[in-house]
C-alpha cells in the first residue's frame, strides 16, 4: 500500500485495557467526521478499528501491553482517504495461514471466534497486514 505524507494525523499509545478499543475508535471517528465522511462510512471505520484493536489485545501476546494507533488523512491536496494503522509488538502471525471463518463451520465448532480479519476486510476499502516475530501492523484505509 503506497502512502504519501498525511494531510493530518494523530498517533496514540493505548494500553491494552478493557474497552480501550472504544477510545481508539473515537480518535478514528473524529478524524473521519472531520473530513466529512458519510455517517455509514464513519461507522464502518469505527467497527474496523475496534476489531483491529481487539485482535492486538487478544492475540499479540505483546510483553509491552500497548498498541500504537495512527489515524491519517491522505490525499494530494484534499482528503481522499482515511488510513488507520494499528501496531503491536507481539509475536506476530502468518496472515496467509489464517483460515477464512465460515458460519456453517463455526456453528458446529467449539470455538466461535476468529472473525476480526474477515470483518475488517469486509468493511474497509484497503487492508494490509504485515507481521513478523517482532510485531504486527494492520493498515486499513477507507476512501472518502
Amino acid at each position, binding site marked *: 500500500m503506497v502512502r504519501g505524507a498525511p494531510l493530518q494525523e494523530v498517533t496514540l499509545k493505548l494500553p491494552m485495557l*478493557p*474497552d480501550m*478499543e*472504544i477510545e481508539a*475508535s473515537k480518535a478514528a471517528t473524529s478524524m473521519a467526521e472531520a473530513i466529512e465522511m458519510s455517517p*455509514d462510512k464513519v*461507522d*464502518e471505520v*469505527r*467497527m474496523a478499528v*475496534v*476489531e483491529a484493536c*481487539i485482535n492486538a489485545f487478544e492475540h499479540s501476546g505483546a510483553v509491552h501491553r500497548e498498541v500504537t494507533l495512527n489515524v491519517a488523512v491522505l490525499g494530494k491536496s484534499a482528503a481522499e482517504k482515511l488510513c488507520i494503522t494499528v501496531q503491536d509488538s507481539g509475536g506476530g502471525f502468518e496472515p496467509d495461514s489464517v483460515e477464512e*471463518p*465460515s*458460519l*456453517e463451520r*463455526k*456453528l458446529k465448532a467449539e470455538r*466461535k*471466534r476468529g*472473525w*476480526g480479519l*474477515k*470483518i475488517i476486510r*469486509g*468493511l474497509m476499502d484497503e487492508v494490509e497486514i504485515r507481521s513478523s516475530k517482532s510485531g504486527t501492523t494492520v493498515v486499513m484505509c477507507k476512501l472518502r
Partner: protein
Amino acid sequence: MTETLKLTLDRREEVAVIYTEGYINNQGGEEIARVAYELMEQGQKNLLLHLGGTKIVNSIGISILIEIIEKIIKIDGRLGFCSLTPTIEKTFHIMGIAQYAGIYSDEPAALEGFAASS
C-alpha cells in the same frame, strides 16, 4: 471502566423481545446469552433481539450471539434481529448470520416475519 449493556425484556405471546442498549462486547454478549438461555429453559423458542439501542458490537460479542443461534436451532426455535445500524447489518451479512437468523428492518416487520413462519 467497561461499558455496560442494558437489557429490557418484553414477553409476547409467541416471541420474547430482548431490547439492548449499549455496546455488545464479551460481557454484553454473555448477558444477552444468560437471558436468552433462561427464556429457552422456560420453553420460549422464538427470540427477537432488538438492537435499536446498540450502535456498536464487536466480534467477541457476536460470537456469543452465534452460540445462541446454535442452541436455538437445536430446539427448533428461531432467533431474529431487528433495528440494526447499517454497519451492524453489513457485518452480520459479512459473517453469514442472515442465513441462520432473521434480520428485519424494525420490530413490526420482525413480529410479522415470526408470525408468517409459525
